[in-house]
C-alpha cells in the first residue's frame, strides 16, 4: 500500500512540476488565440528568448537567477510588443493561413538568429544553491527546484486568476473575449488591451522559458521542439481561458508522467491519445466556449 502511495505521490508531484512549465509557457498563447483569434505558432519563441535572456542577463549583469528571470520577462514582454506592432497587427484581419505562414517564418528566423548569437550548444543556467538538492515536506523529500517550480506555477496561476477575475483590467479582458464589438461600444480600447495582454503573455512565457532550462534544456531549436505540446495544451484547455489552460496543463502533465512511469515503452503515445480523446469529446476544449 505504501509502495503504491509512493508511486502515486511521485507521479502527481513530478507531473505537477512539468505541468507548471506547460502552463506558464502556454497561457499567453491561449489568450492571444482567444482574444484576437491569431494563430501564433511563434509563441514558443518568446519562451526561448526568455531562456536565453535569463542566461545572458545573469552573465552580463552578474545578478542572480531570480532577478534575472524577472528582467528577462520584462525585456521579452516589451520586445514582443515591437513584434506585435510591426508584424502581427497588420495580419489581424488577414486569413489564418497567412498568420500560420508568418508565425512559422518567425520561428525559423528565431532559430537561425539564436544559433548565430548563442551557438547550437545547449545552454545551462546556474541555479542558486538554495534551490538545489532535496527538501523534506513531511511525507517525504522532494527535489527543491521542482517544489519551487510548482510554487511559482501555482502563484502565477493564482496571480493571473486574481488579476483576471478581480481587477478592472481583468474584467475588461473578459468582456472583450465575451463580445468584442460590445466591449468597444462601452469605450474599451480592445486593441490596446490586447497589446497589453500580448506583452504580458509573452513576458510570462519568457519567465517560463527561463524556468524550464534546468529541466528541458535550451537550444535554438526549443521553439520548434515544443510547439506541438503548447498547441495541444491550449486546444485541450480551450481558447482564452486561464482556468482551461491550467487544468489542461495539469491533466496532460500528470498523465504524461504517469505514462512514462508506468509504461515507458509507450513513449509520447499517452499524451496524444488523451488529447485526442478530450478533443473528440469536447472539440472546443475543456473550458472553451461552445457557441
Amino acid at each position: 500500500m505504501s509502495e503504491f502511495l509512493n508511486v502515486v505521490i511521485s507521479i502527481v508531484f513530478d507531473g505537477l512540476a512539468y505541468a507548471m512549465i506547460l502552463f506558464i509557457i502556454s497561457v499567453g498563447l491561449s489568450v492571444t488565440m482567444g482574444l484576437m483569434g491569431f494563430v501564433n505558432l511563434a509563441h514558443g519563441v518568446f519562451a526561448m528568448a526568455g531562456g536565453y535572456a535569463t542566461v545572458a542577463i545573469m552573465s552580463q549583469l552578474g545578478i542572480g537567477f531570480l532577478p534575472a528571470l524577472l528582467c528577462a520577462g520584462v525585456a521579452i514582454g516589451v520586445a514582443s510588443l515591437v513584434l506585435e506592432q510591426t508584424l502581427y497587427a497588420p495580419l489581424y484581419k488577414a486569413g489564418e493561413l497567412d498568420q500560420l505562414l508568418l508565425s512559422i517564418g518567425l520561428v525559423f528566423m528565431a532559430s537561425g538568429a539564436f544559433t548565430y548569437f548563442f551557438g547550437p550548444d545547449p545552454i545551462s543556467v546556474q541555479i542558486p544553491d538554495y534551490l538545489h538538492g532535496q527538501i523534506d515536506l513531511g511525507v517525504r523529500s522532494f527535489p527543491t527546484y521542482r517544489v519551487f517550480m510548482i510554487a511559482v506555477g501555482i502563484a502565477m496561476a493564482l496571480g493571473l486568476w486574481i488579476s483576471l477575475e478581480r481587477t478592472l483590467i481583468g474584467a475588461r479582458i473578459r468582456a472583450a473575449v465575451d463580445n468584442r464589438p460590445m466591449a468597444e461600444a462601452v469605450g474599451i480600447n480592445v486593441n490596446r488591451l490586447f497589446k497589453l495582454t500580448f506583452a504580458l503573455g509573452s513576458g510570462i512565457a519568457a519567465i517560463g522559458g527561463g524556468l524550464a532550462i534546468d529541466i528541458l534544456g535550451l537550444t535554438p531549436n526549443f521553439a520548434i521542439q515544443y510547439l506541438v505540446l503548447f498547441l495541444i495544451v491550449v486546444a485541450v484547455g480551450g481558447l482564452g481561458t486561464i482556468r482551461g489552460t491550467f487544468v489542461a496543463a495539469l491533466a496532460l502533465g500528470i498523465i504524461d508522467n504517469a505514462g512514462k512511469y508506468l509504461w515507458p515503452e509507450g513513449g509520447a503515445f499517452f499524451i496524444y491519445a488523451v488529447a485526442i480523446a478530450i478533443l473528440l469529446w469536447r472539440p472546443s476544449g475543456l473550458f472553451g466556449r461552445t457557441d
Partner: protein
Amino acid sequence: MKFRTYGYAGALLALSSLPAETLAATVRVGVVLTYTGGAAQLGQQIDRGMNLYIKQHGSELGEHNIELIKRDSKRPGGDIAKTAVQELITRDQVDLLTGFVFSPNAMASAPLVTRGQVPMVIMNAGTAWIPSLSPYIVRVSFTMWQFGHPMGGYAYDSLDCKSAASGYTDYPPGKDSVAAFKHGFERAGGELVDSIPMGSPREVPDFTPFFQRVKDAKPDCFYVFVPGGNHSTAVVKTFADLGMKQAGIRLIGPGDITQDTKLQSMGEDAVGLVTMHHYSADYETPENKAFVQAWKAEYGADTTPDFMGVAGWDGMAAIFHVIRSQNGKIDADGAIQALRGWKFNSPRGPILIDPDTRDIVQDVHIHKVVKSGDRLAIQVVGTIPQVKDPCKALSLGKCAN
C-alpha cells in the same frame, strides 16, 4: 558566418613556388552534418575539429588542395542526407564523403556510396553494423558496444553492482548501448532488473518519471545512455534532484553523460560519476594537450573539444592520409585499402582501423569525475587497451549476420 570552406591547404607561398609540371589536385570532400535542429551542436563540434586539422596540417598536403562542400542533413530522417549525398556524388563529384552524425543518415546513404564508389569516413554515427553496409565505409568514431560492453563487466567486478537498471534514449544507439551493457553485465554475473526507454532523441524529456521509477526499484547501479548534447546535463541534474545517490544508487554510463562540453554545467552533482569512454579533453598526453590548446586558441578559451571534435580531427587525419597516399587522385578501392590498418596517434590515444571490419579500434578508459580547483575534471582510473567492437567480435545481435 561561415560559407563554404575552400582549401586552406597549399599556402600561397607553396603554390607560387611550384614547379610548373607538378599536377596539383583539388580533392573535393562532401561533408554531411546536422548543422541545424536539435543536433546542430554535434555538427558544430565535428566541423570545428575538421577545420582545425586542416588549418594546422594543410601544408602537409603539399601541392594538393582540399575543398569541403558542406551540406546540412537537418534531421535524422535519412532522406535529406541521402539526397545530399546523391547530389554530392553526381553533381559536385566529390572524391570522399564524411561527417554523419545520426546513424540513419549514414545507413540511408550506404547504398549510394557503394554504387557511386565514393569512400565514406564516418565521424560519429555509432550503430554497430554500419561499416558492413558498404565496402566503402570506414569509421573513425566509436561503436556503442565499445563502451557499454566493458562497462557491464567493470560495473559488476569493480563497482560492486550486483543489480542494475538501465535507461536509454529510445533510438538505435540507445538500444545498442543498453544491449551491450546487458550482455557484459550479465556475463559477469549481474542482473539487469529494468530497462527503460526515455523518449526520442529529438527533444529532452523531463527525466523525472523514468528516474523515479528506477529510484523506487532500488538497483545498485543505474546505467544511462543519452545522445551527446542537450540530454546529459538534465540526466545528472535529475539524478541529483531525486536524491538517488543518497538512496545508494550509482549512476554509470558511456562517456556521453559526462561529455566535456557539458561537464562544467553539471555542477557538484557530477562528482563521483563513473563512465566509460574513449576521449576527454582532460587527458594528459602531449598530443591531447596540444590539441586542446590549439582548439582554445582557435575557438575561444571558454570552449572545449569533446569526443565529437576529436572525431572530426581524426577523420580529417584519415582523409589526409588517403590524399597523401594516393597523391591527390582518389580511387575508392585504393582509398579503402590505404585506410585498412591505418594507425594514428590521436589526441585520444593510439587508434587503428581494423583491416577486416573497417571499424575503429581504440583504448577505452574508465572516467571518474573529480573536483579540480573550481572546475570539474575527468580522471582516468583505468584503461582497457585497443578495444575492437565487441558486437562484431562476439557476433551478437544484428552483427551476427
